[in-house]
């Protein structure tokens, strides 16, 4: 009974979230398209580097088409999972005292935000798919599709898990608003680390071994790098291992989010009086 009620309640939130974000379709389309343009430049630089190598040369195990596919998949995963304005909105809700209304109602703020994140991602992806498909068609000669059917099951799973970890990171960063007046700089600093450690800028295999080890102790590689590797069907040995780590970070993220929220609320009430 309570489950059915909960489903009803939060599915309404999902629908409202979808309706609200639909307004931004044109904005999303523009954002998704323009972000591919600098990528075109980066890929051109890679082509030039590969051009200087003997035919069929590899870099850290990547052929040219492997490298191009990597960047494309990372962009797809990013479109599917990146938080756009969720963290800013949560921080603003806390700062402006808007969360008070959630404390009075039988609505769980974490679930509520998760629903909004999922609906926002659904709409963004449905729009971003247009430029991404065009872009992939343009690069079709270099794009490597998976060869094993199981990948079409594992890839979405890894993206979903990565997305949820991404959400919890953003949620935790936003909760810092309980303690700090302005969290935007902290969010940007976190994002800089995420940008490099999740494999956005380049595949993590290019880094020195020691640095790689350190990065793999953080949750970041499991946001985009790991799903991309699943799609490219590399690292078959530790595949199960990778999913286990994703799951572990997911649990840690959830527990930390609950904990930080309750700690934050104690502070919130004391300030709000």
């Amino acid at each position: 009974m309570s489950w059915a009620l909960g489903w009803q309640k939060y599915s309404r939130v999902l629908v409202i979230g979808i309706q609200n974000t639909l307004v931004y379709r044109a904005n999303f389309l523009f954002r998704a398209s323009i972000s591919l343009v600098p990528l075109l430049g980066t890929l051109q630089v890679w082509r030039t580097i590969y051009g200087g190598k003997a035919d069929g040369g590899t870099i850290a195990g990547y052929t040219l088409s492997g490298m191009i596919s990597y960047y494309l998949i990372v962009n797809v995963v990013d479109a599917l999972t990146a938080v756009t304005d969720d963290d800013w909105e949560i921080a603003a809700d806390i700062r402006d005292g808007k969360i008070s209304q959630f404390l009075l109602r039988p609505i769980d703020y974490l679930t509520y935000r998760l629903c909004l994140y999922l609906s926002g991602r659904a709409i963004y992806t449905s729009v971003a798919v247009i430029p991404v498909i065009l872009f992939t068609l343009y690069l079709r000669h270099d794009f490597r599709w998976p060869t094993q059917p199981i990948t079409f099951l594992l890839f979405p799973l890894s993206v979903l898990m990565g997305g949820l970890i991404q959400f919890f990171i953003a949620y935790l960063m936003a909760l810092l608003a309980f303690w700090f007046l302005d969290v935007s700089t902290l969010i940007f600093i976190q994002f800089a680390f995420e940008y490099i450690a999740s494999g956005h800028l380049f595949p993590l295999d290019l880094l020195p071994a020691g640095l790689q080890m350190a990065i793999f102790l953080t949750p970041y590689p499991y946001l985009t790098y790991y799903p991309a590797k699943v799609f490219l069907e590399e690292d078959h040995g530790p595949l199960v291992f990778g999913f286990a780590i994703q799951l572990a970070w997911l649990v840690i993220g959830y527990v930390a989010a609950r904990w930080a929220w309750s700690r934050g609320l104690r502070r919130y009430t004391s300030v709000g009086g």
Partner: protein
Amino acid sequence: MGTLQRYAAIYGALWRNSVTREMQFKSNFLLWIVVELLWFALQLAFMQVLYGQTDSIGGWSRWQVILLVGVSNFIQQLFTAIFLTNVNELSEHVRTGKLDFMLLLPVNTRFLISFRKVDLGSFINAAFAAVVIFYAALQLDLHPSFLQFIGFAVVCVAGISVHYSIMFLLATIAFSTVRAQGILTGYYNLFNIARLPEGAFQRGSFKAIFTFVLPMLLVANVPAKTLLGFPSLPSQVGLLMLMSLICFSASELFWRWSLRRYTSASS
């Protein structure tokens, strides 16, 4: 009092306002510098990783590209320091009707909009970029002549002016739609192209567009080449100067045209 003197006095007053404003939030001011430094370090790290795999990209060596990244950041930070906030606020002025008030002041309105606020932190970041340029120049054992320095300063101004003109033109779209913000952020995204060595791009539509329409591949590459003393320089300098003139004229024409059609947002 001459016109130039009067405008210099006004700009001085605007500077004093900005300093007072920034010093109210000192810790925030420092944190933003850290944020920008981190992103700058990321760009440099990316190039280091690339040059871990090769010695030359399109004829550019490692330290030449590091110098290029430094120059590109230098120009971007100076642009941010002087213009970015102001250009971003244009649509806000239209929406709130503040533009009406500015139109009535006995000062050139575009001057007032473009120079209202100064972002001091970005000057500090520009200084960090200058340090990277200097260090790369030491590694390359460069000995730029006095003429090269003057040339560098001139093409840097041209590069900043290209960014400013295009951004102002895009912001002027705010007169017809309130949602110009997305377009501005989008253009800022393209700054990423400026730090790529032009030599990596062969002839093609990408190179043509980002040379002759949105001259991203000139903005930082030409100043860097000026310091490096690349042989193909004179024609490239001419091209950047021409493009900056075209961009500025286009933005001024569009601005005047938009002002003529402007019918206030309020009442």
